[in-house]
């Protein structure tokens, strides 16, 4: 890419970079939306998801520290995002644990990092690496635009299913409801920062690439959840039946 894209063209390019690898298309997301997962499988999801989203404020903390002081709005956004994740209302991970408990697992199991899959560990490590090593604008593109902004569209599909097909109560699925509003704000603010601060063709190209990689990482993570917890169980059941 040799020329600077206009804001509108850059936004479209960012959206397209994410769209191709959206986690909405992963087999785990499709099984979830189809209502075919067991509570046990949803519990495994929660035990993994905690270790991906739990440190989100930590990831952003590294980006905040490395964001140049003159980018006041961007720094304020990162700080507000961290605050909202942790202490703005209920701590978001506490709501995830409430859902996990409704699925039959425990706070102790969820917070125990030994219960995450190697792929979840890879996604968490990738998030830390991006936060610590990338240009802070590129890191916002990867973590906020590439990952966080996908969440509302995923949860909009998954939340009604949790109530209607899996029989969870409103309070048990509050984690998902909440993210439809808060991540929509965070994702959109992330777009505004990236559109404003990625002001060279090189930075724009790096933002586009990291959005694509971030979406790939999330797809890899959810696909691995399917392979580790759904496909494996199906194979065991088939073997028993045979």
């Amino acid at each position, binding site marked *: 890419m040799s020329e600077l894209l206009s804001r509108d063209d850059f936004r479209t390019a960012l959206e397209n970079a994410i769209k191709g690898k959206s986690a909405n298309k992963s087999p785990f997301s499709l099984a979830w939306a189809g209502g075919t997962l067991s509570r046990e499988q949803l519990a495994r999801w929660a035990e993994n998801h905690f270790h991906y989203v739990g440190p989100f404020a930590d990831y952003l903390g590294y980006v905040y520290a490395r964001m140049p002081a003159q980018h006041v709005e961007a720094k304020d956004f990162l700080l507000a995002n961290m605050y*909202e994740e942790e202490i*703005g*209302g*209920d701590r978001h991970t506490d709501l995830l644990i409430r859902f996990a408990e409704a699925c039959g697992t425990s706070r102790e199991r969820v917070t125990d990092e030994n219960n995450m899959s190697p792929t979840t560990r890879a996604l968490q490590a990738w998030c830390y690496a991006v936060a610590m090593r990338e240009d802070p604008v590129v890191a916002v593109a990867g973590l906020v635009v590439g990952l966080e902004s996908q969440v509302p569209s995923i949860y909009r599909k998954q939340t009604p299913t949790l109530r209607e097909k899996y029989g969870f109560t*409103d*309070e048990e699925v*509050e984690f998902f*409801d*909440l993210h439809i*509003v*808060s991540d*929509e*704000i965070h994702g*959109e*603010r992330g777009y*505004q920062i990236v559109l404003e601060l990625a002001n060279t063709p090189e930075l724009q190209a790096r933002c586009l690439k990291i959005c694509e990689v971030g979406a790939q990482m999330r797809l890899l993570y959810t696909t691995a959840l399917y392979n580790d917890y759904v496909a494996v169980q199906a194979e065991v059941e088939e073997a028993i039946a045979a």
Partner: protein
Amino acid sequence: MPQVVFHKNGQTFTDEVKANTNLVVRAGIKQFPFPHLKYQCGMGKCATCACEVLAGGDQLPPPNWKEKKQLGDRIDGGWRLACQLWLDHDIELRQDDPACT
């Protein structure tokens, strides 16, 4: 596109928004009704975004469990939590600061 009329401390602000819009999300990204709409948690826990619906309330879905919990009897007076509403139609709302009520 839905038209939103927003009354705040005796002033009136009007703008159009896209269909399926949440006003707290809009305020969060610094678009109308920013900076007039007060909100905080964005998750139906604090009721900072509570608004009195003056017109268009009949087209909203019934209050959800969070609104019932936070607003109690105020629901009967036409109050709703803006963070819980996704708008597809015209609406008129009022949110005054306590000193101005």
